[in-house]
């Protein structure tokens, strides 16, 4: 007999039991990871951090002697410049694009009907893609921090007068900023994730996301601005202070808007999942 396919037996009283949810999730993740190959989502993740760091690097390379006070550590100012360039507009837009691109992998291939006809639950599909977006978001932030450190070290070599090589890197402040910024992106990430899944198009979530980011900027002076998930990365970026003595002051606990970001994250995912779970797959 041909070994490629077995003969089906006409008796079918028992079905094999469904794989447990964790096995389903592991399989979905293995599949989703493969699908990232050669995608725009992956390229965006790897390159997004470079733009703000390159910009800041060039500013300090040419104008560092004017901008930085002579005789003090240049790191706090450099880190703040980087973070504010990235955090105000670029980071929210990055999250909007990343989420839409990851979901668009399936939409472009008209693969939702295929995906949901496989022996994995809708929950596994939902969680797996969410974990992919969360992981890519984390990778992008980590690369951003790594690039800041690299660019600072490079300035130490190319512009020794700025003093990057003589002063210590404020690692603790940097790590707190990294963690809190990540949390600040979660609210808008979840909202965008649900919007992408509900509309299954690329244009709608990107349009919604960009509109929301622009609207947020206009609403910054509103007393409830801290409750807007799209404002959270910006609020975290500008929460960084530099003391008179030149020390980077960074909150070692979650700020209010970061708490709201977590609430948005949980709320959007819960509501979104309920909406998506019983939905008919027509495309």
């Amino acid at each position, binding site marked *: 007999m041909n070994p*490629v396919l*077995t003969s*089906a037996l006409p008796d*079918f009283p028992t*079905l094999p039991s469904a794989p447990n949810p964790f096995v389903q999730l592991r399989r979905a993740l*293995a599949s989703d990871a*493969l*699908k990232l190959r050669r995608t725009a989502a992956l390229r965006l993740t790897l390159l997004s951090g470079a733009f703000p760091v390159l910009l800041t690097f060039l500013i300090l390379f040419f104008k560092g002697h004017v901008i930085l006070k002579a005789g003090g550590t240049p790191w706090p100012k450099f880190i703040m410049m980087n973070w504010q360039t990235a955090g105000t507009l670029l980071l929210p837009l990055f999250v909007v694009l990343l989420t839409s691109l990851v979901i668009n*992998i399936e939409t472009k291939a008209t693969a939702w009907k295929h995906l949901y006809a496989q022996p994995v639950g809708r929950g596994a599909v939902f969680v797996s893609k969410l974990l992919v977006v969360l992981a890519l978001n984390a990778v992008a932030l980590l690369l951003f921090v790594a690039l800041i450190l690299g660019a600072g070290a490079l300035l130490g070599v190319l512009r020794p007068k700025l003093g990057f090589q003589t002063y210590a890197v404020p690692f603790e402040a940097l790590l707190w900023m990294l963690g809190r910024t990540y949390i600040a992106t979660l609210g808008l990430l979840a909202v965008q994730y649900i919007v992408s899944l509900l509309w299954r198009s690329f244009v709608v979530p990107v349009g919604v996301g960009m509109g929301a980011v622009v609207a947020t900027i206009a609403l910054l002076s509103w007393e409830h601005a801290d409750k807007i998930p799209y404002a959270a990365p910006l609020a975290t970026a500008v929460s960084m202070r530099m003391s008179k003595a030149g020390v980077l002051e960074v909150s070692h606990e979650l700020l209010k808007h970061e708490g709201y970001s977590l609430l948005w994250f949980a709320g959007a995912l819960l509501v979104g999942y309920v909406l998506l779970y019983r939905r008919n*797959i027509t495309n």
Partner: protein
Amino acid sequence: MNPSSSALLATQGLYFNFGKRPILHDVNLLVEPGSIYGFLGPNGAGKSTTMRLLLGLLRPAAGSVQLFGHDLARHRVAALGRVGALIENPSLYDHLSGRENVEATRRLRGIAAHRTAEVLALVGLTDNAHRAAKEYSLGMRQRLGLAIALLSDPDLLLLDEPTNGLDPNGIIEMRELLRHLREEHGKTIVVSSHLINEIEKVATHVGVIQQGRLVFQGSLPDLQRLQTGRARLVLETEDADTCRNLLPRLLAGATLVGAGTLWLPWISKEQTAELAAALTSAGQPLYGLRLEQPSLEDTFLHLTEAKAELVR
């Protein structure tokens, strides 16, 4: 014994609405193990909707689906483990190679790694497996979709218009493959199409759907039997209308199809002889008188044009 208990796939009173628009009306499918079930109907009759209901992609407004004797709504994940499906156009990731496309589904289903090469070989894509799916021709995409559907060595294959976009050679290849899967491996296959010619050479059973209702279901011989009562006489003369007036009794049931052509239901040899004699004695020229057996295609067209009551 309950007939549906021996069926591999059965639906009971399946209804589906799209918003307020009714799409399916009381569909009762019955697919026996080891059959190739040709699911026929014109475009828009509800074939794809039915296929999606069979996979749990859509939720029925009423009725239920039984796969392998188990309720789909309650055992969806377990039942789908034994089903391979190709719905409309194959879902392919253009940025991945053919092999990576198979791999994506293989990982998702947790199937042994050696299956990837096996199914690629089965559909004849081994040599092109390294190429990006976006470079594939329509026929290759269809075959890759089929390879993915066959990955899990499923007991039941659901193929929605698998010959869409294939050239005549591709259609013949697909037909050979389906026959091979059934005869050598005992697979049960449900294959939908809007063309009966594609199905009649390979199907063992046929279901015909029209405007969301199943208007025929049975074996292929059953369908062939249905058409024997529908043979007709084609009469060619100079002026058909005059003939009808001259011979009102013999030509009462005739339909005028051209200035000189009449169709009438065939009843017997004697009817044919009597008609020929009557025409000649009435002084009308008889250019031709022949018996036409409708093809399976005519029967299919007749079924899908007629209202549901006809075959009930």
